């Protein structure tokens, strides 16, 4: 995919600190321009933990991802094409969709218990009415950019109806939970480029395993702390049973990060955002200081929780968010949803359920706080510098300088 770029151009771009991803964007302009995978993004740089920065003390699962919760699948469609001035309806396009399926089954046939929380309300999660009313999630979770919400919702409905024409006739319906953040700085928002084809591709490819992070799926055009960000994920293993018993529960978090201001950024308590004050977003050739906007948080666990317990997990996600330094501004859509695969729910529920004893919640609270914090930071360390509409640029968090700062504060691991 780099064939159309000369060696000189590649060298120059590296010298300028632009990433390969940004460099190949022009080359992608006429290519199909979509990728769909659940594998690690080839352009990804590192995960926080690979840098030796460890958040908290609970161990992560094997993938350190939301997919460590057995059965949970993630699939993403990434749209990156076009460059130069914005032409509404054409591009440049820097968006996509991230799909999360709680189980390998059709969600309305085998729903999960769920709950949601609004941390700050300047955002959208569709499908919350049925979640509140029934405590059940019967549709896919789909994360995208603001303009694409309607079409992504429609894509979710089409995906459901193609698999079950009676999906809306049952006791649990497939209303998609579609969340959004604002990618307008890089993306042709008004063009609304994510539709039913992209949604179907993401849902069809949803699988367990490693999850691509950074500039992928719904996170493609996003930024956090004025660095490039996007999708991030992490997980924790939770001790199960009494002190002497064996076994673990899993809790996983996936975020779409597009929030907060540079000076706020804390990495494991270190004020990185006060130490790296350059590399601010550039509108064309001009540096400016856009702030905001939103954080979407998806929490999955196999611990057998009821909706009221899942809402407690949503609240802890807000604490994980706070540990990265963010304050949840008025303009932010900071929304969380949590689900449990630990029981059959709704029409497939057994006559009686085993539910986690309330006294065991603290471990899960801790796991959610740690995994949320790490997922947000993973979105930063994975994302690459991106140039979008009108030449607007959002820089990646430079990992060498990050480690210098961590060293300076004696927290390099």
């Amino acid at each position, binding site marked *: 995919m780099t064939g159309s770029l000369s060696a000189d151009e590649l060298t120059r771009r590296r010298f300028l600190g632009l990433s390969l991803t940004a460099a190949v964007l022009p080359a992608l302009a006429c290519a199909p321009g979509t990728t769909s995978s659940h594998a690690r993004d080839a352009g990804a740089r590192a995960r926080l933990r690979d840098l030796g920065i460890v958040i908290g003390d609970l161990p992560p699962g094997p993938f350190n991802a939301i997919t460590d919760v057995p059965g949970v699948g993630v699939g993403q469609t990434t749209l990156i094409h076009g460059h130069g001035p914005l032409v509404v309806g054409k591009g440049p396009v820097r968006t996509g969709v991230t799909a999360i399926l709680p189980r390998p089954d059709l969600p309305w046939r085998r729903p999960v218990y769920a709950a949601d929380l609004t941390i700050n309300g300047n955002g*959208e999660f569709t499908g919350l009415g049925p979640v509140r*009313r*029934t405590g059940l999630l019967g549709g896919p979770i789909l994360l995208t950019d603001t*303009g694409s*919400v309607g079409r992504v*919702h429609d894509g979710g409905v089409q995906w459901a*109806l193609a698999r079950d024409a009676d999906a809306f006739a049952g006791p649990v319906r497939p209303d*998609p939970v579609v969340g959004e953040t604002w990618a307008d700085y890089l993306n042709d928002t008004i063009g609304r480029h994510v539709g039913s084809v992209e949604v179907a591709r993401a849902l069809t490819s949803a699988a367990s395993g490693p999850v691509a992070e950074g500039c992928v799926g719904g996170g493609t055009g996003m930024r956090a702390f004025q660095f490039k960000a996007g999708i991030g994920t992490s997980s924790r293993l939770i001790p199960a049973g009494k002190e002497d018993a064996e076994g673990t529960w899993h809790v996983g978090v996936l975020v779409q990060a597009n929030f907060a201001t540079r000076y706020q950024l804390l990495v494991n308590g270190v004020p990185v955002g006060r130490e790296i004050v350059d590399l601010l977003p550039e509108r064309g050739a001009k540096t400016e200081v856009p702030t905001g906007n939103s954080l979407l948080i998806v929490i999955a666990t196999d611990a057998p929780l009821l909706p009221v317990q899942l809402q407690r997990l949503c609240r802890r996600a807000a604490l994980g968010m706070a540990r990265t330094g963010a304050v949840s501004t008025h*303009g932010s859509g900071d929304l969380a949803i949590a689900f449990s695969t630990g029981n059959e729910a709704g029409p497939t529920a057994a006559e009686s359920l085993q539910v986690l004893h309330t006294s065991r919640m603290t471990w899960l609270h801790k796991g959610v706080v740690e995994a949320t914090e790490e997922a947000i930071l993973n979105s930063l360390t994975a994302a690459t510098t991106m140039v979008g509409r009108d030449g607007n640029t959002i820089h990646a968090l430079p990992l060498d300088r990050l480690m210098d700062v961590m060293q300076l504060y004696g927290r390099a691991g």
Partner: protein
Amino acid sequence: MRLRDLGLAVGDLPAGPLNTVTDVAGVRVGHARGAMGGITLVLPFTGAPRRYYAGRWSLDGGDETTGLAMLEDFGALSAPIALAPAPALGRVYDGLLDYGFQQDSGLGEDHGWPPVVLAVDGVPVPAVSLHASLGAGQVAAALSTATGGAVGEGQVGVGTLLSGFGVRAGIGCSSRIGRAGTVGVLVATNGGEPHRLALNGVPIGRWLADLAPLPVSYRRSFAAVLITDAPLLPAQLNRLAQRAAFGLVRVGLLDERTVSGTMLAVSTTGLNDAMAGLAPETVTARPTTEAVLHDLFAAGADACEEAVLNALVAAHNQNTNVDGVPGLPVDAFRAAAQ
């Protein structure tokens, strides 16, 4: 035809001049149909969108509702309110984004974002067909025809093919003038058992023996929009939404078989006076006393009760006998009521 044309009315409070939701100044309503089903838009503002205080009550949490995070956190919205079947919700949402982008390419929270779509489901046609027949075209049509004045009732807009109490139902409107202001309502009437139908406490449905109940599988889901020019704050609008639902219980629409229902209450007076980019440091709030609130609650409940009956009366000769659903036998109804 409306309930009052039969010489009947609900309660003692005076209705507004048109006895409809548009009796609140500046309110517009637009209906549009697709090949199957339809949508209804309610615009609580004149001209470009302006931010308004809003509150909500829903049965058990309600049905699919967009804009919920902002409604509950800010107690305010700025977009047209759409009522649409759930399978078409995303397509209607996308049509409202067309409108939102026209107002402000940055989708400002004061200028038409987030879109507000309340799901209303009961239309007995396959979801696949319903989904395909509604979308941005219907949103554009409803926006371009939205108007104050008289509002179409019965089998119009999202009311198309809805049934209630064993007869054709659909959109119904009414209004009441209270001490602190006018309350106008629009109810997408759907569901309800024939034997529960009542007017002013009189169990009319028991004397309309010919009405067959809706099938058990019929989705009993309704939505109502209440608009007042009384300067209510969001928490008070939540209460107005809840208390107005008493009128739906009295008329028999809201009962133990109702799957879901959402009441959205809006004040056209208050926050919007100060928004639209002016953004002063403070805005004026006018606290409303409990006594005045109770008067508005009564107005909302009476208007909701009459709106449901208006839907049945309007639909009595519309789309009847499609799928075997008859229209309300208005003569027997009037006789029973008297």
